[in-house]
């Protein structure tokens, strides 16, 4: 991106800066009461990685239990609690805040060329609200952990004697954290763009975060009121979702999925933004069809609000409603496919550098496409009746949520790690880890597509012996994944101590966050940047042979 800033010469920019956001002020209070979006982003990063670790431990335990058809390590009730905790922790504590609250908080103001988000104190508040929500989740964990599945379906969630209410309150509170982040992002994008930063000069991550914020603001409050009603159901017995008192449990499902389907896009649209950044940088080409990619984020956000009924094809919803929801679900695949095609087109005749972030982006393209296309199986009415509540569904959403979002998140973490910490990690180990994770993920979850089509229902504690070989294969995959993640953690932590100094722009990227020192100063830029071109313009672009003359 071409800017006119009084930037110091390149040699100076590549040295370790004397003053940066990390050492600008000292003492724990300077972190606990900070309003610097970069520090808040880092605190979020540590918090959500902790949640990811916790959710991962639950996942490993669930897979271990499924190694044999009968009891392996835990009883049936504990098993139900484990998969519920895995789901709730991963969704509410990790996936929803992951990219926006950690990477987004850090890089949204920098990509805008701003000094901070619009409401820095609100930003800090949203972090503490997240922490309070997490404490409620831990409360549920230690007081007869919840066993309803992450969907909290009534009437079981009203009658079970496990700690449902604390977990409902946790998700309720975490929702407000998510709303505050979304609000901050929308206002920042509207009001704090640097001079010359027009809407169509914004990096695509910002378009993705904008679309995500819209969903967060409009869908989350509906979840909030729904969870509040279920909590009231448990405390006061209000009966709105309780068939024994004339209430309707299917109404609960409508309310729940009105949030939770758009929430899928809260989790995956920011990942699209990260992939756009990585693909542009490592092919040294502007994203093909920039405007289409930008608007497809908004289109997904919009259409995503009208597809929730595809979770309820077998819940006694009318066939007509089923048809409408099925049609709309196919429709939402169009903007998603636009993105995948455009990224692929960007690769074409690009100068591709297979650095570790790019490896994750390419893995994302493969895995997310599988996840997206198997989604169409589930959106087709007749097919879904067969596949509903089987391991096929489990595999489908893990391909989207983990194969898509988690891989994009890890890719983004590698991409921006030098900017956040000022240090490079061990690139060779990073490539090995990416390969291990790719193998581990597909061993674990591709197997589950086969299990599902053969009729293995999800959430079952015991199963027929003929499924054991596939279940065992999947469990081994989960161990490979664990090794891969531990390796990533190891070399990233090691890089903090002895990583090479990264310099301002180790990847030769063009967006604004790379036009300042690493780690950046508290005010992000020494002078307000002035923007003259689009986000993906590379100085040596013309040197790349684009097409045969």
């Amino acid at each position, binding site marked *: 991106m071409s800017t006119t800033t009084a930037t110091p010469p390149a040699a100076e920019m590549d040295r370790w800066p004397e003053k940066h956001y990390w050492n600008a002020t000292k003492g724990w209070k300077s972190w606990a009461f900070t309003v610097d979006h970069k520090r808040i982003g880092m605190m979020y990063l540590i918090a959500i990685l902790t949640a990811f670790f916790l959710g991962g431990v639950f996942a490993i335990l669930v897979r271990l239990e499924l190694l044999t058809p009968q009891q392996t390590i835990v009883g049936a009730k504990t098993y139900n609690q484990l998969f519920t905790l895995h789901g709730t922790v991963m969704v509410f504590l990790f996936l929803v805040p992951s990219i926006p609250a950690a990477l987004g908080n850090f890089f949204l103001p920098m990509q805008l060329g701003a000094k901070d988000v619009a409401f820095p104190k609100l930003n800090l508040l949203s972090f503490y609200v997240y922490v309070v929500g997490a404490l409620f989740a831990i409360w549920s964990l230690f007081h007869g952990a919840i066993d309803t599945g992450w969907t909290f379906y009534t009437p079981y969630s009203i009658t079970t004697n496990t700690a449902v209410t604390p977990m409902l309150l946790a998700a309720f509170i975490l929702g407000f954290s998510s709303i505050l982040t979304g609000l901050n992002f929308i206002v920042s994008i509207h009001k704090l763009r640097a001079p010359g930063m027009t809407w169509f000069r914004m990096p695509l991550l910002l378009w993705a975060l904008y679309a995500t914020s819209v969903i967060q603001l409009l869908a989350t409050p509906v979840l909030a009121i729904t969870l509040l009603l279920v909590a009231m159901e448990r405390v*006061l017995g209000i009966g*709105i979702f309780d068939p024994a008192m004339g209430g309707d449990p299917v109404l609960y499902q409508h309310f729940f999925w009105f949030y939770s389907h758009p929430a899928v896009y809260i989790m995956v649209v920011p990942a699209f933004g990260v992939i756009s950044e990585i693909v542009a940088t490592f092919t040294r080409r502007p994203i093909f069809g920039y405007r289409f990619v930008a608007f497809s984020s908004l289109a997904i956000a919009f259409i995503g609000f009208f597809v929730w009924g595809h979770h309820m094809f077998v819940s006694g919803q009318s066939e007509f409603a089923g048809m409408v929801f099925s049609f709309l679900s196919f429709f939402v695949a169009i903007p998603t496919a636009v993105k995948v095609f455009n990224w692929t087109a960007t690769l074409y005749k690009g100068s591709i550098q297979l650095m570790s972030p790019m490896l994750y982006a390419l893995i994302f393209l493969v895995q997310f496409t599988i996840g997206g296309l198997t989604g169409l199986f589930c959106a087709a009415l007749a097919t879904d009746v067969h596949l509903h509540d089987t391991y096929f569904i489990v595999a489908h959403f893990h391909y989207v949520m983990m194969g898509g979002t988690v891989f994009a998140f890890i890719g983004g973490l590698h991409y921006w790690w030098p900017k956040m910490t000022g240090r490079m990690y061990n690139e060779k180990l990073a490539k090995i880890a990416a390969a291990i994770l790719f193998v581990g993920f597909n061993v674990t979850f591709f197997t589950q597509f086969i299990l599902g089509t053969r009729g293995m229902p999800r959430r079952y504690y015991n199963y027929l012996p003929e499924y054991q070989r596939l279940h065992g294969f999947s469990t081994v995959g989960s161990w490979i994944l664990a090794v891969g993640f531990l390796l990533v953690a190891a070399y990233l932590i090691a890089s903090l101590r002895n990583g090479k100094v990264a310099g301002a722009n180790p990847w030769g990227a063009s967006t604004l966050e790379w036009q300042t020192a690493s780690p950046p100063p508290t005010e992000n830029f020494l002078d307000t940047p002035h923007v003259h071109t689009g986000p993906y313009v590379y100085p040596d672009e013309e040197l790349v042979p684009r097409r045969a003359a």
Partner: protein
Amino acid sequence: MSTPTAAIPSNIKRHEVGHHFGNAEQEFSAAKLGFWIFLCTELLMFGGLFVAFIYYRTFLAETFLQAHRTLSKPLGVTNTVVLITSSFTMAMAIRSAMVNKQKQMMAFLWITLICATAFMVIKLGFEWPAKFSHHTLPGRFFDLHHASEAYPFLADVKSPAIFYSLYFMMTGLHGIHVLIGMGLILWLIIRGGRGEFYSGFYTPLEVTGLYWHFVDLVWIFLFPLFYLVG
């Protein structure tokens, strides 16, 4: 209105613009945009309850028709008038700050707070206790035996408890919003007393005003739905 703007009084504390904003106007418009977006969130939150209302009103039409007769129309009307008055005085308080009439602003803020208190007193002091004494309460606490002594028509309809669940949830959530609004107005009175609001800075007044009108508007829908249509 063309009230001439009075000179900024000498005891006013001048507002400093946040370091990440270019100027006061950018800061003001950001705050206002942020608050409008927050109100969208609020709208969707109440929206969930309104959908639940429409759903049960459709399937339990007779229940809702009969049960709505147990609500007090005179108290509902009084509360509606009280809230609309408070919305007017809130708007006038903002107007007064914009033209540097600080004393007037404080008076309007106090009237708004008094109206809000009156609303809550009518709700919690008169309406809800009547429900408790007749056992017309939400869900599990609804007692048909006691309730049908006062309202015999409730005995003939299906699941009357659902009506009261919705009534208490919706007016309760609205009531919590009124209480939060009272806290905000009190905070404005304290800050206004310190001389922090003037023609150059009245953002907190403006956004609290938006909030207060929203709370008022929710009631404008709750009142006819529960008290008049049923």
